[in-house]
């Protein structure tokens, strides 16, 4: 005897199959990693001298402007000679100091302790 089929509630349909979410998750994850990687690369790697194959390495005759940073100071190592015409500053020269030429007048107050040159008779 065949089993009886029990009819469902009137008007109900079976739910349509939902798409597998793992594909979208995988796609979003991969894209995010790629974007983060590009961002980090842009931040961490400074602009470097152009590689031989890059357009910036083409000779100056091809209207490429090469900008050099002017060298203002060079610290000479022991035994090194300065370039011709360079002004040499002695590293042992005293640093410029701020000098106070006007010391405020001492406050009007009783002072008991006094520093003096040795042998000074304190009045």
């Amino acid at each position, binding site marked *: 005897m065949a089993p009886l089929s029990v009819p469902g509630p009137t008007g109900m349909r079976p739910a349509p199959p939902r798409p597998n979410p793992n594909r979208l998750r995988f796609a979003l994850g991969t894209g995010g990693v790629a974007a983060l990687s590009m961002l980090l690369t842009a931040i961490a790697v400074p602009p470097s001298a152009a590689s031989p194959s890059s357009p910036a390495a083409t000779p100056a005759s091809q209207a490429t402007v090469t900008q050099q940073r002017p060298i203002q100071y060079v610290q000479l190592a022991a035994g090194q000679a300065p370039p011709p015409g360079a002004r040499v500053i002695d590293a042992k020269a005293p640093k410029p100091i701020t000098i106070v030429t006007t010391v405020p007048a001492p406050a009007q107050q009783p002072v008991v*302790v006094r520093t003096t040159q040795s042998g000074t008779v304190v009045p």
Partner: protein
Amino acid sequence: MIAADRQARATRAPRDTRPTPIVPVSVATAAMGGRLVVHLAAASEERRARHDAERVLSRIIRWADRLSRHLDTSELSALNADPRATVTVGPTLGAVLCAGLDAGQESVGLVDIALLDARLAAEGLADGPPAGTAPRDWSIARGPRRTAVVHRAPGVRFDLGGVAKGWLADRGLDLLSAWPSAVIDADGDLAVRCAPGQLWAVALDDPRTDGAALAVLHLAAPRDGQAVRWGVATSGTSVHRWRHGDLVHHHLIDPRTSAPAITDVVQATVVCGSALRSEALAKTAVIAGSVDGMALLERAGVQGAVILTERGETLALPQTLALLAA
């Protein structure tokens, strides 16, 4: 009632956090060719303060008597009179000789305690050694039972001078550890300790006018901090001077020439962590002159420096401004 208290608290002036100037109990005596003074912030304990001050003064004088070149009975005089190249000395003299070596290093060689003969020549009491030829090679090593062994070239004799005074001031302050605020004045070289919330006003002597001050320093410890320790020392060319014919000599010998230093600095005062170091650096600034001296003091990291030049200028390192009394 409670509401009234709250209102009173709300209208009360904010608590004064400025350090309180110290009015000390001071005990003084003559010693080391000058004065020796102990200042203590004693408040209501004056009797105990005087007792402790006198005890420390007598101890410092006993030490000083071993270190003086003016006393024939001192251990230093015995060392200077000893013809041997190797001599064993006691713990006190050994410690001060070691301090002299440290002062020499601190001062890039401008403080040299092995210049007695050049000093005597400046005073007109002996013929000075030819410039640059004075024998000054010496060293010191630890000996048995806290003694020390001095090795020296023939003819090396010592004048401890300000090194001894700075050392004595620092050691004297160590003996007063029971007093949070105390000063030892070893003939103008000061070892200073200040308790939190208190303040020592220290005048820098103006050598041009009796009783006048170039400036007044406020050495204060913050209320919420710990006790602070300083050294304040002054050196100069205007007190110890001797005339020989047309020439006027002073007592600060330049080791590079074995003669009184040719300098534009009349007086230098230095503030740093100890009296010994302050004294060595103040003397260095005088011998080196105002330009090189100020640069050297800046490199040494002192807390303050004021110099008076022969042109009448009073110059200070910038960090001194924080210490100057308003």
